[in-house]
């Protein structure tokens, strides 16, 4: 069981959120799991945490298609915040649009954090989704 300080789940679909939370139970122990309906809410929360000196989420589950601020826009804003701590971001989407995959590749090159691409449906959360590749192997 991996100990994670803080996890953000950013998705407007309650079923997906339910699933992620359920799957997390068996692989990680985390006291600080936060749910957000869209990128904008998550972004505001991170800014708040930075301001107050609270811990930054270690792992982010990020949907792409969301209202107000989608996953890509959130990524842009996150990179702009220039956070020094390491973050593992899991892009979760049901999209099989090759354009989304291309976009992910582009982001991967300029994103200072680990950026995973996970296609729905998800059945299990892997160790490296939690940013612990070394321990897992």
């Amino acid at each position, binding site marked *: 069981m991996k100990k994670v300080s803080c996890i953000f789940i950013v998705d407007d*679909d*309650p*079923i*997906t959120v*339910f*699933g992620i939370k*359920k799957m997390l139970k068996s692989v990680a122990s985390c006291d600080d799991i936060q749910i957000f*309906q*869209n990128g904008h809410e998550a972004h505001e929360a991170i800014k708040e945490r930075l301001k107050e000196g609270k811990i930054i989420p270690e792992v982010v589950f990020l949907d792409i*298609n969301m*209202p*107000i601020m989608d996953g890509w826009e959130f990524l842009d804003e996150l990179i702009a915040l220039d956070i020094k701590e390491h973050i593992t971001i899991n892009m979760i989407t*049901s*999209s*099989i*649009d090759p354009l989304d995959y291309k976009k992910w590749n582009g982001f991967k090159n300029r994103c200072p954090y680990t950026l995973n691409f996970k296609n*729905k*449906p*998800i*059945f299990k959360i892997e160790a490296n989704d939690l940013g612990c590749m070394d321990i897992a192997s």
Partner: protein
Amino acid sequence: MKAVKKVDQFYLLKQLPKATALLCKKGILLDASCSWLDIFGLPPQDETTKTKVSLLYSEIPDLKRRLKENKSFSLQHKIENTDGTRYLKSYFAPWFDEKENVIGTIIQTDDITPEVQKEQQIDWLNNILETKVEVSETGWWEFNVQTEELSWCKETKRIHQVPDCFEPTTIEAINFFKPGYSQNKVSMLFHKAIASNQSYNTKLMIVTFNGEERWVRITGKPFVKDGKVIKVFGTIKDIHDQEIAETRIKEHQQLLSTLVDSLPLNVYVKDLESRKVLVNKGECNYFDKRVEELIGKTDFDLYGEKDAQISREEDIQVMKNLTPIIGKETVSTLNGKTTHFLTSKIPHFDLEGKVCGLIGMSLDITAMKKKQEELCNLINITSMQNQKLISFAHIVSHNLRSHSANFSMLLGFLNSEKDPQERKRIIDMLTQASDNLLETLGNLNQVVDINTKTAETKKPLNLQNNIVKVLENFSALLDKDDSQIINNVEENIEVSCIPAYLDSIILNLVSNAVKYKSPNRTLLITINAVKSTEGVLLSISDNGMGIDLDKYRDKIFGMYKTFHNRKDAKGFGLYLVKNQIEAMGGSITVQSEVDKGTTFNVYFNEES
């Protein structure tokens, strides 16, 4: 006594009317008549003068020898003096005394200047005639009516290709003309010339001695004496080559003009001042004018000032730089009708190679142009529809996939879940996922309907009535909040629309305004409609929350895009509206400012 006699003799000599002189045996002038002395310009003679006659006839070197022969002879000579040349003829005869002894020579001299001059003139005239015959290649002939003798000149014989020794009879001459028309005609003309004193000048064909058929121009002119024709004089000229050349030129012209006229092009030739000097049928038909009405006209006489100026500048460019314009697309407006041409202008050179104007050719490509535009439109529509189809396919795949993924995930959980409480939760979730899927399918079906039912007929609908009908649905909602709707749409405005779509468009836009009203202000919706030549513009404005278009312009009409945290926002209404208005050939645009309000402009296309 002897002396007196002698004096008498010489005195008599002086007076002789005919210029006469006496020489001694040595050839020295003894004395002469005044007229003789006058001819040679000599003073009166006596023993002292001793004029040697050989000096007077310096041009005749053997005069001395001939005098010694004591025989009569005559010779011609001339004297040059200030009045010009005098031609003379002198007769020399031995001078005998009573005993028949030769004692000298008697000379008699005639001035023959007029005769010589006449002769020279005749020579000159003959020369001229011969030269004329030679140069003009015109032969002559002469017929003596009384003797029935016909004579041909050398040139005439050459034309008939007969030897110089050939002397024709009248019958033979007439037989040289080609049997049929030519022969009959010449017989008749010749007969008329003799019988009724008629001249003639005509073009006929002969068959030469060598059997060649050649065109000739013949003339005949009778000469009358005492009221009777005594002679017929005429000329003959070989005009075969000119005739053939002329025929060929005529044939070429015929070919060229047929060609130019039948070309499916407007062809014109312009001079340096851009005046038309030649136009073909196509050009006449285009202007609906006759050739005479177009010749001499410039484009300024035919087109509007602007078109004419453009054309003239092209003309100048072609004639100045000698570079042709080939296949340039031009537009001309004539009597309000616009024609597209593929125009070529080529510099026109005279025979000396100097530019003297231009040749223009214009192909009417209006029909082609229109087809091309239609094709372009079709391609645009097709590619737009294709784009729509692709994006729709993505939407479908994405939305369906997201639900099926949820099913898979939840079913996976259910399989391994033992806790009955948790199982119930999962089953609730499954039910929710199923409802979501049904709703999504419903939405997608609606979109497919719009895009497949474009054939459904549009009807003219009264805009005002339809707006009022839709607003009735909102009355309860609006009354509750003191919301206000100002409907400025005039009663008589009609739009061509599919009825269900018009309702959907109005409903969605108004409900959007209601949904996103400002929490700080009473809602005010203003509806306007403007009718123009392009169609009807319906504007629905609110004073609501507004939307940041810098961020969301690309997405506002996208499917499942929402921009505010509202539970009832599904991101489908505007997508539907856009699909419906575009399916009817119209369009929709948006203007908005955050916390001020939003205006949607709907353009109804009036074409059916």
